[in-house]
């Protein structure tokens, strides 16, 4: 109980408040999100469930700022670590008489520029379809290294420089420290003293490998030294290491490519280490492969690695397993669970498959017609679903034992002309007159359990 209290008191990383998003299409305004309220807390896995077209993916993409040019932010806000990046879009919508996608695109460009600083660093995303998420013309190593290149070039530079600074006796001493008492404070102090901090993750990546004999590992660690470097490269790498950003001269076409090449080469190494940590065999060869040489499961692992390599605070997983077959699906879920243990990130797991959500999530939010209708702890949602829609969803889950599957009668309302009151009214067995008049708010029905339905309005006081 106490720990629950503690958990809910933690500041949310992302807070979505009354968020409205409309798509302007040729056939009318499609109201995709109609007042979403949600928060994602530190270290939790929030599952988002709902049928197709209820706005799950739109919400995920809106948090990332990856919305198309015809999407208008009508109202509300999304706070990422307290900052509302989509505000310019809302301001544009509020101040314009007629919404124009081309004008919206201008504002979107600015939002994109701002957000590209946090994407891949604070928040990142895994898409549904691993077959189309990777660029077919680039080696997967490059695609992973790219994240590091634009967010932590300092790390890459420091890794490269440390290998040239370190001497044979340094690495030998480090192996000795590791053998005696593992990667502790003394280990770090030694690295700091010799100014070879960039070696830390390289050594630990080898040290933590399970597929090698200790002797082999020691040999590999001892080899991480005395790498020659030309003075020109040394010069600019030192600048990059100090400032942790790409220098201005890297924008000069051909010259910039030479600068980046050294960093990208290092990025390949880091990528292969990271893939190794994820338990992917032959990772040192895999980084030189192209996406078409990999299977769907392997590609999804690469995509997940790309999203995770910078240890972002929040990872949005948009149906990461839906396009994979069941055995691969299980492996990917296992991988995500492991990552949850080792990297302290929050996850937003979008899925239409409730059994998958039951497997991974801490809290679950149920969405219907662009709104969150119920949100609560996983157990509360599965054991005591409150909203009629949630209740009917639970009855529609197929199980091994034969039971009569009850579908939900009726259809999602036409989102171009959503009904005035509760969106679920037409399909709800408990519909009351008040449901036709106004929309219900989210009200508390239990410990950290909220539902938007007039059935529970009485319990509010």
């Amino acid at each position, binding site marked *: 109980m106490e720990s629950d209290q503690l958990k809910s008191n933690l500041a949310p990383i992302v807070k979505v408040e009354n968020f409205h998003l409309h798509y302007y299409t040729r056939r009318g305004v499609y109201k995709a999100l109609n007042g979403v309220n949600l928060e994602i807390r530190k270290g939790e896995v929030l599952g988002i469930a709902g049928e197709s077209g209820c706005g799950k993916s739109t919400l995920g993409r809106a948090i990332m700022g990856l919305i198309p040019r015809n999407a208008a932010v009508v109202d509300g806000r999304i706070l990422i670590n307290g900052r509302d990046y989509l505000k310019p879009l809302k301001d544009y919508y509020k101040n314009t008489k007629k919404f124009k996608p081309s004008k919206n695109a201008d504002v979107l460009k600015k939002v994109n*520029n701002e957000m590209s600083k946090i994407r891949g660093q604070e928040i*990142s995303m895994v*898409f549904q379809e691993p077959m*189309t*998420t990777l660029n077919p013309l680039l080696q997967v190593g490059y695609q992973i290294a790219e994240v590091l290149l634009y967010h932590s070039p300092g790390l890459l530079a420091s890794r490269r420089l440390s290998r040239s600074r370190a001497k044979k006796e340094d690495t030998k001493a480090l192996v000795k420290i590791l053998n005696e008492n593992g990667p502790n404070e003394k280990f770090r102090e030694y690295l700091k003293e010799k100014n070879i901090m960039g070696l830390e993750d390289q050594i630990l990546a080898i040290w933590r490998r399970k597929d090698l004999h200790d002797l082999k590992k020691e040999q590999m660690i001892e080899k991480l030294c005395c790498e020659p470097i030309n003075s020109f490269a040394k010069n600019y790498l030192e600048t990059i290491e100090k400032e942790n950003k790409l220098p201005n001269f890297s924008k000069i076409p051909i010259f910039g490519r030479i600068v980046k090449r050294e960093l990208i080469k290092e990025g390949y190494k880091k990528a292969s280490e990271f893939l190794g940590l994820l338990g992917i065999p032959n990772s040192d060869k895999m980084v030189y492969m192209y996406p078409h040489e990999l299977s769907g499961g392997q590609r999804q692992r690469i995509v997940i690695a790309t*999203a995770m390599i910078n240890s972002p605070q929040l990872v949005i997983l948009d149906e990461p397993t839906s396009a994979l077959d069941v055995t691969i699906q299980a492996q990917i879920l296992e991988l995500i669970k492991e990552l949850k243990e080792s990297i302290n990130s929050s996850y937003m797991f979008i899925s239409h498959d409730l059994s998958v959500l039951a497997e991974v999530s801490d809290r679950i939010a149920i969405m219907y017609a662009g709104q969150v209708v119920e949100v609560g702890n996983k157990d509360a949602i599965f054991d005591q679903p409150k909203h009629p829609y949630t209740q009917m969803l639970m009855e529609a889950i197929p199980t091994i034992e034969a039971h009569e599957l009850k579908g939900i009668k009726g259809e999602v309302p036409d989102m171009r002309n959503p009904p005035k009151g509760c969106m679920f009214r037409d399909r709800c067995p408990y519909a009351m007159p008040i449901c036709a008049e106004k929309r219900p708010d989210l009200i508390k029905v239990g410990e950290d359990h909220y539902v938007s339905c007039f059935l529970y309005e009485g319990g509010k006081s």
Partner: protein
Amino acid sequence: MLLFIPTLLGLTVIVFVLIHIGGTNKLLAMYLSPRLTGAARQQIIAELDQKFHFNDPIYIQYFYWLAQIFQGNWGITNTPIFSGPVTQAIELFFPNTLMLTIFAAILIWLISIPLGVHTAVNRDKPSDNVIRVGSLTFYAMPWYLIGIILIIIFAVWLKILPINGTVNPSLVADLSWYHNGISYPTHILLIDALIHGNLVVAGNAFLHLIMPSVTLALGVMAALVRLMRGTMLETLDQDFVNFARAKGVPEKVVINLHAKNNALLPVITNFGYLVAGLLGGVVVIEDVFSYPGIGMWLTDAMINNDMGGIMGGTLLFGIILVVTSLALDLIYAKIDPRIRY
């Protein structure tokens, strides 16, 4: 990829059939100067009979003919601007055309790819509309019209570019490597002038190249701009582009590395065939600018019903097209890692 060999053979079959539709006389016309008469003519015909075996069945004759083609015996041409072996005419006139086409191709590539990317990225904005309408206007105009408009503007009104030819004749009047409008050793004036270190002539030759190649480029640019815009718009919607954005890669890199390179794949194919097509299209341009290329010789050949010239041209353009598609295959394999031969 090796399919280009049967394609080439197929091409020769068609050319051979075209020649023989008119009977053996047409073949003779390709190898026999009409000025010859009497005994000399009979003697040459007897020699040709030894080479081509006129009395054998036609499918046997094809192989004898093919053997001659491979040996470089493409017949003779008799036109006011040149008379002599077809291969020699090609050697003299084709380099100029090639230079013009390559120059135009570079212009087309350098102009239309950035424009296509720009229009896709700035979709529906004024600049997009202006570029699209502008390029389509040129596309709708016949080449000679564009050429004449350019001549009026830049040569007649502004007087900054020369009207016709490859070089100002007074500059080359007493050069050792230039006779009768033909330069040596490569027959491309611009390159020859650079080889001989004569920068004045090279500059002048370059000025003469500008208008014809700009005309060529303007005429076909719209096709490439629109294609690039279309594929770019399609690619910008792809998942991997969004994923690149989700990684926090700056928008400029997303567009120029991730989106553009993928959008270029179909454009490259079209560009290759467009350039191969340009080699045929220069016939008109060379006439407008009196540029001594293969087009000028071939128009002459057509007007004078010169079999050697017409068939030599057909064979040459066919070979160019086949070679282009071979080159495209190779380039494609280089760019797209999914393609292996």
